[in-house]
């Protein structure tokens, strides 16, 4: 990246400076910023939808482009390739990439204080604790195998004692009893299971030693240096969006039936359930996206159990302080 100042970068700088100093912002040309989400449009990203719809990003002088995710999209790849400025990632993947591949990432915030991923089973054949997994068949998306291995190792369970099979995001095999449990968002799939006439039982991996964040906000060091002000503005606007959304989780999803959620194949009731269930996992004492020293230490400890070496330097909490 060269540091020559042309008209455009000058304007960007000016707009960002304006955003930071609280000048009247709407009058200024907005700075382009692109975010890569972790999955297709669902309630997991409600805060950003609110912030976009209500113009919170525009208020901050940002012209935000939102990219949806999918099974083959590795959010980290999008920011390495320079197609997005920031990405929502799973922290285990990101930290492994930093420590093993030398990727230059910084984690600047965390949407979920507690990872919503859990082991979901049926009440009539419940898996209540990691120990119950012994001898059972668990469906896990291949991408998340690392996380389940962490759970087993942290709870002293032999990996060979659990039969792990691929999970294709369809709860049918669980409801039909072909598998005993699956790894999924506990905020989401129990709703579907109830619709299929069964009752779900689940526990969070977080409550059994895998004390990880999820949807960590990740940027490259290069972007952090070049667009710091914009990133702070993004965090501020997104926090506003999340606060607004979580004030009453049932308000916004129905409004997006014809926009964000149109044609996703999911139902609005499902999204309301999701939005309500995720509230406690997102809200933090220090404000949404907080990363307290305690929480960071817990993340690093949990990852150590599966041989991933995280350090405090991988987390940059200074942007949160500037909000």
């Amino acid at each position, binding site marked *: 990246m060269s540091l020559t100042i042309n008209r455009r970068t000058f304007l960007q700088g000016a707009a960002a400076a304006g955003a930071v100093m609280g000048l009247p912002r709407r009058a200024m040309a907005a700075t382009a910023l692109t975010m890569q989400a972790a999955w297709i449009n*669902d309630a997991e990203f409600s805060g950003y939808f609110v912030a976009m719809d209500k113009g919170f990003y525009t208020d901050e002088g940002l012209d935000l482009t939102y990219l949806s995710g999918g099974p083959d999209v590795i959010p980290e790849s999008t920011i390495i*390739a320079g197609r997005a400025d920031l990405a929502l990632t799973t922290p285990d993947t990101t930290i492994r990439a930093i420590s093993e591949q030398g990727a230059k990432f910084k984690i600047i915030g965390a949407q979920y204080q507690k990872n919503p991923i859990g082991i979901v089973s049926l009440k009539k054949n419940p898996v209540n604790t990691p120990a119950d997994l012994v001898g059972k068949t668990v469906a896990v998306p291949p991408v998340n195998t690392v996380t389940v291995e962490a759970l087993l190792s942290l709870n002293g369970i032999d990996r060979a004692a659990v039969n792990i099979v691929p999970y294709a995001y369809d709860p049918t095999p669980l409801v039909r009893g072909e598998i005993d449990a699956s790894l999924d968002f506990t905020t989401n799939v129990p709703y579907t299971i109830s619709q299929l006439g069964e009752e779900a039982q689940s526990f969070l991996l977080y409550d059994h030693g895998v004390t990880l964040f999820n949807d960590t906000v990740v940027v490259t060091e290069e972007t952090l240096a070049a667009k710091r002000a914009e990133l702070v503005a993004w965090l501020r606007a997104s926090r506003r969006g999340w606060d607004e959304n979580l004030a009453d989780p049932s308000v916004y999803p129905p409004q997006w039936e014809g926009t964000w959620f149109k044609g*996703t*194949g999911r139902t609005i009731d499902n999204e309301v359930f999701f939005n309500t269930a995720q509230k406690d996992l997102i809200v933090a004492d220090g404000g949404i996206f907080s990363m307290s020293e305690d929480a960071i230490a817990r993340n690093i400890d949990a990852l150590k159990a599966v041989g991933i070496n995280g350090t405090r330097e991988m987390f940059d909490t200074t942007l949160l302080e500037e909000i």
Partner: protein
Amino acid sequence: MANRARFLRTATARNLLILVLVWELVGRMDWIAGGALPGLSEILIRLWVDRGDYPSHIWATVHASILGFLIGNAVAVGAGVLFVLFPTLLRLTRGFNIAVFALPPIAIAPILVLTLSGMAPRITLAALGVYFVTMSATVVGLSQFDSRAADVVRAYGGKDWQVMRLVRLRGAVPDILSGLRIAAPNAVLGAILAEFGGGGRWGLGTYLLGSLGRGEPARLWGIGLVATLIAGLSYLVFAIISARTLGSTRSVTLNTAIPDAGGGTPGPLPVRLAIFAGAALLPFVLWWAFIRLSGVPDLIAKTPLGVVEYLFLSDTSHIARGKLLSALAETLPITAIGMIAGLGFAFLLAISARMFPGFIKTFMPVALVTQTMPLVALTPLLVLMLGRGTSVTLWITISVTFFPAFVLLVQGIQRVPQTVLDLPRAYGASAWKELRMVSIPAALPYLFAATRLTVPRALLGVMIAEWLATGTGLGNLLNQSRGYLDYGMIWTVAAVSVCLSVAFYYAILLIERRTLTRLGMQTVE
């Protein structure tokens, strides 16, 4: 004869009706896998309920398919013309062409999503799906022209390119059209596959992904049927166009002059070796160029050298090699079995087509649905019926492989000259004996061609089963590597699976050439 045809048609209609009724009954009564197979009416009702969702998704899929179809075919026809004009070029690019044909889409999709953005991965996968078919059809069409018409042009002082323009290109139109007919559904399937993984907002693949989590088989089957319908319609459009234009290009009388065998002089050994080396290297050069042109950083986009370094030169190479080898040890044996099973199934069907034509006419629509139904949508059903062991892998592999092989074998059995068939008939041989002693041996070149088609697809089928159901082998390694952000492994698996497919293809080609030369038969393209 006309009576018999009418009888067959009514019989087919009757059988189809029975089939639909059985499906409906089985679905309604929840007989298969505790209701995982919905009845046809349930699917249609669900389709009607969801009708508002479909237009944008269908449009996105059709849009990407059409762009991929146009680009892929433009390149394919252009390449076909060049190959016929400069046969050396064809030999030089053979490695590349076979590689494109043998690319397992599930290994390539993640790589396209890594290196390209927006609609580009979908369009590319659609284009890759059409290239080989159309290119081969173009080459075949341009090579088999009416030499009498060419003689006329030459007699009036026409040059090679004028022969090309006035005779060969015109003569090749029916062949190219029949190529396009097969290519069109391929484009649709390629686009859907890339949508499924690629993170766009619209497209049937995206819709399928969102719907998977709902555990509603009727919706999944609905999406599958819509995909089938689009693929079928695209096939039909070109079938009609080609039926319309066929009459205007075909020679009125039979050309009795035998065209020269083609291929030309192979040249001295060093030249042949150089061309062979070039053909082997070209795919890697193009791979390297693709990465350089896409401008994606080295960390995520690996060049051929990057993969070599990953596998042999870095500190963790031995771990990577160990993972790869143990995955291959799981994948290769089942691929061999799957290939035999797929061919065997196709062979049985082809024989049944000869013995019981009515049965096969009923079976064809079902077979077509299995070809265009996204396997992801079927997996929960397959897993419930077959479990997660060898049998599910074999059935997925059979379903991915049998169709092209079946079509070729039927062609082979049908093309046995009538005069040859008259002999056993005159001696009162049974249909079975006639098949065994005449039709099957005469169709041997087609059996080999079918094997060549089947082998790369068998690997694809096994990888799909590993990815969706069993969680073993190369298919699973590819997916797990994404979770580990192990880019080196993602590229390695893609490269290894393509190399394996090409190697299989060549192995069959060698056996085929030897056997057929000994039997005095010609190979079938």
